[in-house]
């Protein structure tokens, strides 16, 4: 019998560390010596790396690396069944596929995990681990597969001693689990697992997942391509897989890269630098065949970028990079009008819970929602996460599915809910207060945001001179001058001051005498200049692919409304954008920081300017590189430039930087990049029934086919629900159609819209009565004009600043920026 209360790890009835930490210092010392099975004690290497940090920074690191905050249910149930995503976890995490973790998925291999049967591996056979790698803590975890009561390592996290009574939510609710073999991906024993059913399904081999994920051959047309056995929710796998923030943000240290990126050591690993090789998008779509709409929606991203707004389904193709979290203490602040929850000692009597709420049983732990002007950074690439660093950190956890059931899933649309009267038709605003009340893991994270922020503040830029093992910045300058030309760095500095610093400096002009590499007094590691002003500029002025700037989740009534400052809601749209949309702040990018730019190429928010990079997995089935290079007609070019193999070395990063800078400063030489569908998409609205007689009686046979070679961006950004609604209104209630577009379209545009809808209905639907609706060119132009959230197609366009510099000046600029 399933016992739902056991979905959470039991809190330890006796917490020696916590009790003793409030006692005598000598006892505290003893307690510290005997407690903790959290990651720091499971891994000597990790513990060694975080040892120099303060207590609060260490806690922050542990949470950042390991806490999933209850999203293992999301990545086992919610993502598949409710969102319609599909992940083949075994295909990614199987021990026998360890060699491809980095090359295929860009995952950072966990140095502490081993393949069962290898020398010194505690597990001797794959059957012991159900085919996964063995990782520290699995000696306990494996005993709880199919059982309740797993003692999650998070319960043993040694929190910073509390000031007064400890009001924090139990650390158990952080949900650490153990490593999967990829840092940031965590595994949990599935209490619902039925071993006998698993063995029956998988040919008596516990390590085999083939019955669970294997090809379906009952119906020839759906084998692997249209449906997958992985959607069968009646089968419970041995593990539930969760995701920590580290899954995207853990990367290799630019100045201390691994000799072999497939086998790193802890000293090579950094939790905040960002993983520019990660293919998280491909992970999230790994269970689909390529015919599936969802595969083409999710998995069209280059390494190092992920469309974090895709899960809330904003219908904007806008994958973005995992930024390096460095030098945050110097990040520019901006005044915003902010409505948010703030800590309070108590709530006035009679206050509504929507305005002030005290956590039951926690004296004085209250929150009040109020509006104030505050100085806060513009976070995210459009600056839309703008109510505070801590809130932005907390929101990351929702992006990765934490508390999804308690407070998130009901606010995102169902892809196939096409009836506008129904729930789940579109986004609704996530309610922070409700989530705090109803999700223990929200509180567990929130109560440790100070720790995570402290951890963030430990990160510093990586200087190229140090990475090269040179004695000083001047030695690097000499090397760069030698590479480019004598005096290149100094000349580059002047160009930077004159042409770049107005956006890429947090200082104030004039910049003639600015030391862009100055450090803060008293801290020689902390740069004074953020090398970006974080100001918001219209994307049309920058000219780059606008997807990220157009994302709409922060708008009023949308899912992340409460994470945007009020002034962002009111900001007019970029008037130069051609898309049909109201205001609410869309169409802006913030200027980014160029700190350690040498280590973070390719460039721009989508890593599109610069060479394409790729891994070389041994298993070609998981080689996800496809050339995005197209000609002026948007067709693939015959001989595209080859992708550059992942090279995490200092020299490799630097070479990629130089090539990317040249690409950026020479826009006329760029070859357009546009991801095209690499297979037909077939969307079954009402499929043909497999049995001919049943099909004759009841089959509908209505499918939409979008051909291979179509721009993926055009599909990903389509407001298809609006199109369906308008098609119905065109036939049934033209007045409502007028009402819908009043203020959005002028009379001519509205007439065009109606005309186009009428043609669509007459030609594509009534006249042809097709069983497969093909996307024709003229039809597509009309649909895209009115229903695309992003009419940009070329991914590496724009940012032409510096184009007119001489070749020598461009070299000078490349040389100088490498020193930043």
């Amino acid at each position, binding site marked *: 019998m399933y016992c739902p209360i056991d979905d959470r790890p039991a809190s330890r009835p006796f917490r020696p560390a916590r009790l003793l930490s409030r006692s005598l210092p000598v006892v505290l010392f003893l307690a510290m010596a005997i407690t903790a099975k959290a990651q720091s004690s499971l891994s000597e290497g990790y513990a060694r790396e975080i040892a120099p940090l303060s207590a609060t920074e260490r806690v922050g690191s542990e949470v950042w690396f390991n806490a999933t905050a209850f999203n293992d249910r999301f990545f086992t149930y919610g993502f598949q069944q409710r969102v319609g995503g599909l992940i083949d976890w075994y295909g990614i995490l199987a021990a026998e596929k360890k060699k491809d973790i980095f090359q295929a998925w860009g995952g950072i291999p966990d140095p502490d995990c081993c393949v069962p049967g290898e020398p010194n591996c505690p597990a001797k056979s794959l059957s012991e681990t159900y085919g996964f790698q063995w990782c520290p803590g699995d000696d306990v975890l494996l005993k709880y597969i199919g059982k309740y009561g797993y003692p999650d390592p998070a319960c043993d996290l040694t929190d910073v001693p509390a000031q007064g009574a400890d009001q924090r939510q139990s650390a158990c609710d952080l949900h650490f689990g153990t490593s999967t073999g990829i840092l940031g991906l965590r595994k949990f024993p599935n209490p619902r697992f039925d071993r006998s059913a698993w063995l029956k399904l998988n040919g008596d081999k516990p390590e085999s997942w083939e019955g669970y994920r294997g090809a379906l051959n*009952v119906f020839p047309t759906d084998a692997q391509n249209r449906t997958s056995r992985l959607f069968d929710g*009646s089968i419970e796998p041995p593990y539930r897989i969760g995701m920590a923030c580290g899954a995207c943000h853990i990367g290799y240290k630019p100045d201390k890269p691994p000799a072999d990126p497939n086998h790193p050591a802890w000293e090579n690993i950094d939790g905040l630098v960002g993983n520019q090789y990660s293919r998280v998008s491909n992970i999230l779509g790994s269970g689909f065949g390529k015919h599936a709409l969802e595969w083409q929606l999710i998995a069209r991203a280059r390494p190092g970028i992920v469309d974090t707004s895709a899960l809330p389904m904003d219908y904007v193709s806008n994958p973005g990079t995992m930024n390096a979290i460095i030098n945050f203490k110097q990040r520019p602040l901006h005044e915003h009008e902010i409505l948010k929850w703030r800590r309070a000692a108590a709530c006035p009597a009679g206050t509504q819970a929507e305005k002030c709420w005290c956590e039951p049983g926690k004296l004085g732990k209250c929150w009040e929602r109020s509006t104030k002007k505050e100085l806060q950074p513009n976070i995210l690439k459009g600056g839309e996460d703008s109510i505070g660093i801590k809130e932005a950190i907390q929101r990351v956890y929702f992006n990765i599915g934490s508390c999804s059931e308690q407070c998130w899933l*009901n606010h995102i649309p169902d892809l196939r809910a096409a009836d506008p009267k129904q729930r789940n038709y579109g986004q*609704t605003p996530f309610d922070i207060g*409700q989530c705090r009340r109803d999700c*223990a893991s929200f509180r567990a994270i929130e109560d440790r945001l100070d720790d995570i922020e402290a951890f963030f503040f430990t990160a510093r830029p990586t200087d190229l001179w140090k990475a090269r093992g040179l004695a000083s910045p001047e030695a690097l300058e000499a090397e760069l001058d030698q590479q480019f030309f004598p005096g290149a760095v100094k000349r580059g500095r002047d160009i930077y001051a004159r042409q770049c610093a107005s956006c890429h400096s947090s200082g104030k002009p004039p910049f003639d005498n600015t030391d862009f590499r100055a450090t803060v007094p008293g801290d020689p590691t902390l740069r004074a200049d953020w090398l970006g002003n974080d100001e918001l500029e219209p994307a049309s002025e920058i000219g780059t692919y606008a997807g990220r700037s157009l994302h709409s989740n922060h708008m009023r*009534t949308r899912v992340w409304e409460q994470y945007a400052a009020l002034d962002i809601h009111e900001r007019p749209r970029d008037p130069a954008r051609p898309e049909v949309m109201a*205001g609410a702040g869309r169409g802006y990018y913030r200027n980014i920081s160029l700190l350690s730019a040498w280590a973070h190429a390719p460039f721009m928010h989508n890593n599109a300017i610069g060479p394409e990079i790729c891994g070389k997995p041994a298993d070609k089935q998981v080689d996800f590189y496809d050339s995005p290079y197209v000609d002026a007609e948007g067709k693939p070019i015959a001989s595209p430039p080859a992708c550059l193999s992942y090279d995490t070395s200092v020299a490799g990063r630097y070479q990629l930087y130089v090539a990317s800078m040249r690409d950026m400063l020479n826009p006329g030489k760029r070859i357009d990049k546009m991801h095209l569908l690499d297979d037909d998409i077939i969307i079954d609205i009402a499929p043909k*029934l497999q049995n001919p007689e049943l099909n004759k009686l009841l089959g509908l046979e209505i499918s939409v086919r979008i051909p291979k070679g179509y721009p993926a961006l055009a599909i990903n950004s389509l407001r298809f629900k609006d199109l369906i609604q308008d098609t119905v209104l065109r036939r049934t209630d033209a007045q409502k159609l007028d009402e819908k577009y009043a203020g959005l379209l002028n009379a001519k545009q509205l007439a065009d819209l109606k005309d186009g809808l009428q043609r669509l209905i007459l030609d594509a639907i009534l006249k042809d009565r097709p069983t497969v609706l093909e996307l024709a060119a003229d039809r597509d132009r009309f649909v895209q004009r009115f229903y695309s959230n992003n009419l940009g197609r070329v991914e590496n366009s724009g940012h032409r600043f510096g184009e007119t510099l001489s070749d020598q000046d461009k070299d000078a600029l490349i040389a100088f920026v490498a020193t930043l």
Partner: protein
Amino acid sequence: MNMQNLLRAIAVIGVLLLGAGIYVCYTKHGTPERPVISFAPLTDGALKDPDNPLKIFHVDFAKLEHDLPLSRADRAKLTPENLTVLSQEEIDQIYARLTAGPVPDGFMRGNLFFENGVDGLKSRLAEILGGGLGTVADAKIDTLEKLGRSMWKGKYFFRDERVLRNVIEDFKPLEALIEAPDRLQTVEIPRQGLLSYVSPNSTAWLLFPAKLYCGQSLVDGRRESIIIDYAYTNDLPGYMERPDALAGRGGLAIRDEIRMVRPGFYLGRAYANRIFLLNFTVYDAETAENGLQAFLDGKPVAEDCWAGEQGMAAAP
């Protein structure tokens, strides 16, 4: 006619009249009054989408349940009949304030119903698909709806196996669609209507097997529902492609979900290819009636699925 035969005839006529009276009462109860329970406003007028002023918002389920929890007394007011007079949003608001409860066991009589005031599935699909495609769909859907209304009698839950089979009235014309009518599983179910006084049970087919598991609701993600999944049933004993495939992944891709109103009474939602089709109830009169008082007295009810964190704590 001798006296004995006359008495017999009177007795039979009496039984028939009694049956007819009960039947009339029963059918009168087919238009029941609305249950007196609290609902949030059916739309949330405070929210206006900047891009689409026609977009309709509803009150968030978490707020609804926090502000207006459904008490056991409220749930006792609900019947399979009076649910049918409610609007779809009201049905949704009830569903969201329920938990999955225990996976049922045995036969449960079924009733399907569409949004009140809407002409069944046809108009909904026609609207969604657009005029042309909707027209194409209408005739087929009409057939399906008629089949469903007239022949679907309920669901037979095999709790221990986590399997369900639909109870379909034995109907000769349907046999042509069935691969091997002689191999069909059958079940005896209580008969309803006048004939029940003459012959209390009838034989029905067990068709369209489905797997039962705890899973995600497609309308309220805050807690699990009991999922009735027809997609992967070809490995179940007795699976018969014709007609069972009709509901499966190669057919209409039906997926139902149910939550417990009270013991013996569940409210469900049916989806085809993830598109919402209709509501239904399954009801076991004996369990529902015998267990009502204990339920009202606060006796704990088993929860086989994850009940979420907001829980039902606010509901007395």
